[in-house]
Each structure stands twice: as structure tokens, then as C-alpha cells.
């Protein structure tokens, strides 16, 4: 089978898992053998991630993308990395625009000296004209004084002091450049959506006492519950989470999940659950670690209650 892989749509289909096994094998073989082709697929992959983040994919492509990319920790990290770039790039673009609209004092002075605006040009022309006039007046004054001296010498009379014409050029006040405080970069303001996310931070517990359990309050608007399971030690490569009610009904399980550093510096395993899975009840989270060799061992329990408002 010989495919023309100049068609990048075919490569997108491959990345989304929308090709036959034969086509997949052919693309993979060529990817391994051909460095240039490999670069091209990686570019298409990046742009596919970008399209997803910018909401440009069709519904079915979006579904396929989420299955292929978001369920896999490494690929999910890549999506988050691209998201970070897009956010930072937009923030930087806004900052640059603000700086252009409200320039700093120094940049205003430099702009003025480079005659970047009409005001600077007119001001310079006016000052130049004044210098020319001033020079002309000074010359005239000197000529007058010379004549006066000649007359005075001729009359030998006490020269009547003449008022001296001594135009002093008072420097014109320089038009002060626009001054404005250096704008501090204002972060891109993302309007917070309605409170659709509820977070609970949990520590491992030995005692399963409902009265001591931390409560997660969910309203009808809350769509996602974020469970942050703080780790006393991060000893495993990855983790598996299993959530049941205290009666033993299975609610959710998933993994592998990788520990991440929280804002406070502790390591935690974070799970985001659709709140439709959590009715008002008491829950146990069993956390298991996956070691390098592969075995899974349960090592911590977390306990929380859900209250519906």
C-alpha cells in the first residue's frame, strides 16, 4: 500500500485513530524510517492539539481527540503545555498593546526626540523659528548698539543710557511628554465562569468516622468535583484511585494518575469527577500505588461526605 502523505488530513485521521490497522502500520513504519516525514507528523500533532484547544474540531473529532489524548498522561501534559503557550502568548500580546497605547515616560521622551508624532515635529519647528528670530533680534540689537556708540562718540555728550535690548530667550517650557505610570502587565482577565467546580482537599485517614469527614458541598450548578488527595510521601511511579460509598457501592475507579505538586508545595493526586456520580452520601477513596516493577498496592484511604444544596 502506498499513500501520499502530503495530505495532512490523513495524518490527522491517524492521530485521531480514524484509520485502518493497515494504514496505521504503514504510517508508523514510514514514521520510524523517515526523519522528515516524522517531523511533519509531529507538526500536524501540535496543530491538532491547538485546534482542539481553540474549539475548532468537529464534534466527532473532538471526541476522538479526547479519547486519544486526554486519557493518556503524557499526551495530556502535551495538551496542557500547548494551552499554556496559547494563554501566555495572548497575555503577552495584550501587554504589548497596552504598552503601545500608554507608553512609559522614557519611551515617550525617546519617541518625542525621534519626532515620531506630529506634535514633536511642530514643536521642533516652533523652537527652531524662535531661535532664528532670537538670533535676528540679537543681531539687530548689536547693530543698533554700534550705531549708538558711533553717535555718542560724535556728540561727546553724556550718553543717555538707552534701554538695552537684551532679549533673553526664556526657554519655552518643553511640552511635557505624556506621562503615565508604567503600566504593570495586567494579567489576562478570564472572567470566572459560574462556580461549576468544587474542590476538596483530603488527607489520608485511618478512622472512618462520618462525623469527622470533610464535607464537599455541591450545588445544582456544580459540574465537576475536584478531589485533591494529599500524599504524605510520593513513593510510587503512578497511582490508581478507587471510590466507593461506605456501603461498598463502586462509584468510580481510574488510573494511572501521576502525582503533581500543589500550590502549597505538597504532592497530591488530583481527580476531577463529574458531580453526577456523587449523590449525597459518605465516600471512601482507596489510593493504590503502582511501582516500577508493576505491582499495585493499596496504601491510603481518604474519607469525605457529599452534601447537596
Amino acid at each position, binding site marked *: 500500500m502506498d499513500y501520499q502523505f502530503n495530505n495532512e488530513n490523513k495524518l490527522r485521521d491517524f492521530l485521531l485513530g480514524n484509520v485502518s490497522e493497515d494504514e496505521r502500520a504503514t504510517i508508523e513504519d514510514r514514521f520510524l524510517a523517515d526523519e522528515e516525514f516524522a517531523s511533519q507528523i509531529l507538526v500536524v500533532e501540535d496543530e491538532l492539539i491547538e485546534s482542539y484547544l481553540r474549539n475548532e474540531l468537529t464534534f466527532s473529532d473532538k471526541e476522538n481527540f479526547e479519547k486519544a489524548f486526554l486519557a493518556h498522561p503524557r499526551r495530556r501534559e502535551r495538551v496542557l*503545555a500547548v494551552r499554556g503557550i496559547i494563554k501566555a502568548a495572548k497575555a503577552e500580546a495584550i501587554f504589548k498593546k497596552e504598552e503601545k497605547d500608554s507608553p512609559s515616560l522614557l519611551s515617550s521622551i525617546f519617541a518625542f526626540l525621534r519626532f515620531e508624532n506630529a506634535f514633536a515635529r511642530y514643536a521642533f519647528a516652533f523652537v527652531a523659528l524662535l531661535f532664528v528670530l532670537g538670533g535676528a533680534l540679537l543681531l539687530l540689537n548689536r547693530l543698533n548698539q554700534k550705531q549708538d556708540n558711533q553717535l555718542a562718540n560724535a556728540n561727546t555728550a553724556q550718553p543717555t543710557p538707552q534701554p538695552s535690548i537684551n532679549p533673553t530667550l526664556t526657554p519655552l517650557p518643553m511640552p511635557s511628554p505624556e506621562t503615565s505610570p508604567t503600566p504593570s502587565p495586567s494579567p489576562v482577565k478570564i472572567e470566572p465562569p459560574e462556580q461549576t467546580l468544587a474542590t476538596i482537599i483530603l488527607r489520608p485517614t485511618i478512622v472512618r468516622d462520618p462525623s469527622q469527614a470533610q464535607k464537599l458541598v455541591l450545588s445544582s450548578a456544580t459540574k465537576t468535583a475536584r478531589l485533591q488527595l494529599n500524599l504524605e510521601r510520593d513513593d510510587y511511579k*503512578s497511582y490508581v484511585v478507587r471510590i466507593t460509598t461506605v456501603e461498598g457501592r463502586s462509584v468510580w475507579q481510574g488510573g494511572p494518575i501521576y502525582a503533581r505538586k500543589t500550590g502549597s508545595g505538597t504532592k497530591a493526586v488530583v481527580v476531577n469527577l463529574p458531580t453526577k456520580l456523587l449523590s449525597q452520601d459518605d465516600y471512601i477513596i482507596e489510593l493504590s500505588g503502582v511501582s516500577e516493577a508493576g505491582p499495585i498496592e493499596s496504601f491510603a484511604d481518604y474519607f469525605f461526605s457529599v452534601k447537596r444544596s
Partner: protein
Amino acid sequence: MLKLLAEDREEAGLRYEQFRRRLVKFFEWRGSLTPEEHADETLNRTARKLVEGVVINDLSNFVGGVARRLIFEMLEQREREQKALGKLSEPVALIEIEDDDEQDPRLDCFRSCLNELPQDQRNLIIDYYREDEHKRIQQRKVLADKLGTPLNALRIRARRLRAQLDKCITNCMK
């Protein structure tokens, strides 16, 4: 195995690294959670075959076959692990990417890594990613013209820069 890649040892080493990186990606696409380990194991197994005297005419084809064998083993292992967890009522749940207000440490790392880039590279990555949909395509064409480079070369360059940032962010997060 290096001799199969190139006569010159240094060039062979370079090609080995490029090949290994592609293998890592291959395993990632196939759902491996440890793609580097699988890539190394693939190359080790290939090297062992060479030592045993197997004649390999097409190295990439041979390695592809070894890699697929390893994927099969990986899937078998995964099935055993899932059975150990008990029967799953659902497949592994998707962890959604949502835009939340919580301070994401990844973003802090990103900003610091971006600032570490030389100015021209920093500007390139920002200009490349800042616009939305229709403007973005036009903006990238303009950027390519400004840099005097074909659009495709710009895409590849931007992708490499982003991969570089990835590494920096990963180190920052540790």
C-alpha cells in the same frame, strides 16, 4: 547496530538518538505509559538479535516489528493489572482539561521557561501562537515572510521550540 545506521560513528550516534526519539513517540501513540523504557527495550532486543547473528537488511522495519511485539506484551500486562483491580465497570475516565481559576503551577513554570529563551525565539513562539483561527493562519504566513522562511519550515521550528519548552517545564515541575 550503529554500523547499520551510518558508517561514521558520530553520525550513527546522532541517527540512533533520532531513531530512539521516534520510537518513544511510537509507543506514546500506542498508549504506553513508559514509552522511553519500551523504546530502550526495543533497541536492546534488536541489538541482542544482531549479536545472535540475525541478518537485518532493513533496520527500521525490523525494529518496527520488535516494537509491535512489545506493544502486544504491554497490552497483555495491562489486562492482568486491570484484572487485579477488579472488573472495571467503565474504561479509565477521561481527566478533562478545564479552564479553572486555580493557580496552575505548570503555567508558572511555563512563564519562567519562556523568559529563559533568547529574545528572538521568545518573540517567535509568542507571535506564532497569539492569534485565533483565521487571523492565526494569516499571521503565520506574515511571520514566515518576515523571517524569510517557508511556512512549513516555520511550523517545524515552532514545534521544536515548543518541545524545548516542554522539557524545561517538566524539569521545573520536579
